[in-house]
């Protein structure tokens, strides 16, 4: 691996992967003309980048930096023998199975990497009736033999007849609506350009970086970024499928979620820090978004 022609290609592959991680699929690794295993990875990476450039990045060059990921929630009901007694529709979707493919199966069969992590979680729960639930990442084997990772927590059923495994996993925005938007744009005769994407990326990054401040008006934002209100609103709708304000409040809510989880700051203060002057209003909005009240969220 230390030979110069190998080293060079490996360096190029590293760079390529970093660029792709940044949302930049424009790069290609120069072919070496060699026909060896390393070169197969080179050509494969190039081809993958080309495909991603057109298909996966539905909006073209907006890197959501993870913030746009919705959280998919999945619940598995396990019996005393660690078999899957039932699964929520979210669980079926997350793990990529039909209900017949999952129900009745031992959890061991869908856990990649074995039962150790799961058993550890079970042990932690067996000590008394503490409502504290630790969350650990578990790796599941989906129906296509790819793996899915989710943060999971385990709870004993109070009737004593089994366990509830709750999982949270990031998932990308539904692509169906994305394609409709694309088609609409094409029909309107105005297809968003790469510079449109760059503009929206800048505004997006700005908002994410200034969540603790009040949101400037669209007029003000347009002025800041050298564009007009229409372009800004249209661009946000097209690339991010939401309004600027909706995006801003949703990100604040997600930030509140993480603050509650990761810090000891009083809930009322967290609500204030994220723009909610009335705690009941915050609690209501939080519950609607995450399905639980802020008080129910376990703090580390």
């Amino acid at each position, binding site marked *: 691996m230390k030979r110069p022609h190998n080293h060079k290609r490996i360096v190029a592959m590293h760079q390529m992967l970093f660029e792709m991680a940044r949302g930049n699929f424009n790069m290609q690794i120069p072919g070496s003309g060699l026909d060896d*295993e390393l070169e197969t990875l080179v*050509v494969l990476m190039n*081809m993958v980048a080309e495909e991603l450039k057109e298909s996966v990045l539905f909006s073209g060059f907006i890197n959501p930096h993870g913030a746009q990921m919705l959280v998919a929630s999945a619940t598995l009901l396990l019996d005393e023998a660690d078999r899957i007694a039932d699964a929520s529709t979210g669980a079926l979707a997350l793990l990529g199975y039909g209900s017949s493919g999952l129900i009745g199966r031992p959890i061991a069969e869908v856990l990649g990497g074995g039962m150790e992590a799961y058993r550890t979680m079970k042990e932690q729960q067996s000590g008394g009736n503490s409502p504290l639930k630790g969350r650990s990442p578990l790796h599941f084997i989906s129906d296509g033999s790819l793996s899915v990772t989710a943060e999971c927590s385990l709870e004993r059923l109070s009737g004593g007849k089994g366990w509830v495994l709750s999982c949270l996993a990031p998932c990308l925005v539904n692509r169906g609506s994305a394609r409709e938007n694309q088609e609409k744009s094409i029909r309107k005769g105005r297809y968003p350009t790469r510079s449109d994407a760059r503009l929206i990326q800048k505004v997006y990054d700005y908002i994410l970086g200034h969540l603790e401040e009040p949101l400037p008006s669209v007029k003000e934002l347009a002025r800041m970024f050298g564009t007009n209100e229409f372009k800004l609103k249209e661009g946000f709708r097209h690339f991010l499928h939401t309004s600027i304000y909706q995006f801003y409040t949703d990100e604040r809510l997600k930030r509140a979620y993480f603050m509650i989880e990761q810090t000891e700051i009083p809930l009322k203060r967290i609500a204030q820090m994220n723009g909610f002057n009335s705690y009941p209003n915050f609690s209501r909005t939080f519950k609607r978004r995450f399905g639980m009240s802020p008080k129910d969220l376990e703090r580390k």
Partner: protein
Amino acid sequence: MIAAHDFYENRYASFWIADGILFFRYKPDTVIDIEAAKCVVADRIRFQDDRRLPVLCDMQGVLSVDKAGRDYLASSGSVLASAVALLVAENVSLTVSTFYLEISKPAVPTRIFTEESEALSYLRGFLQH
């Protein structure tokens, strides 16, 4: 029936017909871009003289195929081909061809072979009788 010209060559590949099968070999160190793809498809169709034939395509000289090339070959490149057998070596040509098959999804039956005899067996099943 003897073809008007039984051997042809362009910038990118050589073509010949034998036993009702079109043989098509890319030259060494070929990078297939959209221009190359259009050129080989146009020449192949002309060479075939409107007959629909099974095609043996020797990919061993190919270094890479870009997306425009792949997409073109998968759609227009399938015209007048009843089936395609891609002949590959172990590394790059195998990877590129597999990617083409799985991702670009050619419009006619296409399979990958490392042995020419097996490729020909496959194609003989598509001969017009």
